[in-house]
């Protein structure tokens, strides 16, 4: 599944990043790497962007960014 499918309050592990070039670099700089834990903290009123907890900082990602991050939900 991809990160945009993760429900509020749930946590997942990053498996891979599909974005390219600067977008990919951006994701890595935000601390998103294979193995990183990401929690969906809450959605904005319109549902996009969504706030995620990544390496103990809360960071908002837009849907089209989250769609390019492959994750596996934690049991």
């Amino acid at each position, binding site marked *: 599944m991809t990160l945009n499918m993760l429900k509020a309050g749930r946590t997942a592990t990053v498996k891979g990043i599909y974005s390219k070039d*600067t977008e990919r670099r951006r994701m890595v700089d935000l601390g998103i790497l294979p193995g990183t834990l990401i929690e969906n903290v809450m959605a904005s009123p319109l549902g996009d962007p969504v706030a995620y907890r990544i*390496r103990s900082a809360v960071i908002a990602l837009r849907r089209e960014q989250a769609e390019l991050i492959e994750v596996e939900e934690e049991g």
Partner: protein
Amino acid sequence: MSHAETAIQCGSCASGCNTAHLAKLGIKTGNWDYVVALAGNPNTGKSTIFNALTGLNQHVGNWAGKTVTRAEGAFTLGGKKFKLVDLPGTYSLLSTSVDEEIARDFVLFGKPDVTVVVADATRLERNLNLVLQILEITDRAVVALNLIDEAGRNNIKVDERSLARDLGVPVVSMAARSGKGVDELLGAIEQVSSGEFQARPHRIKYTDDILENAIDTLATQLHGQFEDLPNARWVALRLLEGDESIINAVQTATLGTVRAANVFPPLVQLEAR
């Protein structure tokens, strides 16, 4: 004993050793001896430190991204005048948003004499990304390990000596909001700016000959085009990586044009307390 440890020990002399000689000059930033940049991730306390050192009232808040342009102030220490530049928070020097580009350009091309990287002690892993990127481009850096009070509340202990040794630059633990560590930070800034402290920062080594040759060739060409460009190696790496904003800056010959440190027009209006 490493140089880093020396700096820390000096910093820990009887409290009040530096603040006693500190004169907060507010916005009188003309004719400085040294330029000090405050960089770091968003919301790590850069503006709080800026206010503590200059006596100014740069806006401080508890959400990310408040400082959106550079703010400048000044202080004197040990008879020298320091200009202090408060930069917007950034996670990286590589993939920057517009706000972050202000910080990136200043750290890269503004030729600060000292770059203080403010790191959040409660989120060290995340913050070290930018620390390492900045150490790639300058050896005149100090790491201010801020929010150490919060870290203590969360039972996080940071071994600042090991960190200073591994990074090769002074590391100062601080709780800027209550003024803790300000003296030690001033001590480290003074030592690095005067050259008394010689940093040996941690650098990533590229072992690939082809890559090294490409970097050298490009860096030489860049030096030909952009006279006294600092960090030509860094720029060469970005070109090899295909960084569009850097490619564009090279093509339009605008690379590094912020270096005069006072070219940026309107600064945030600050009010002295």
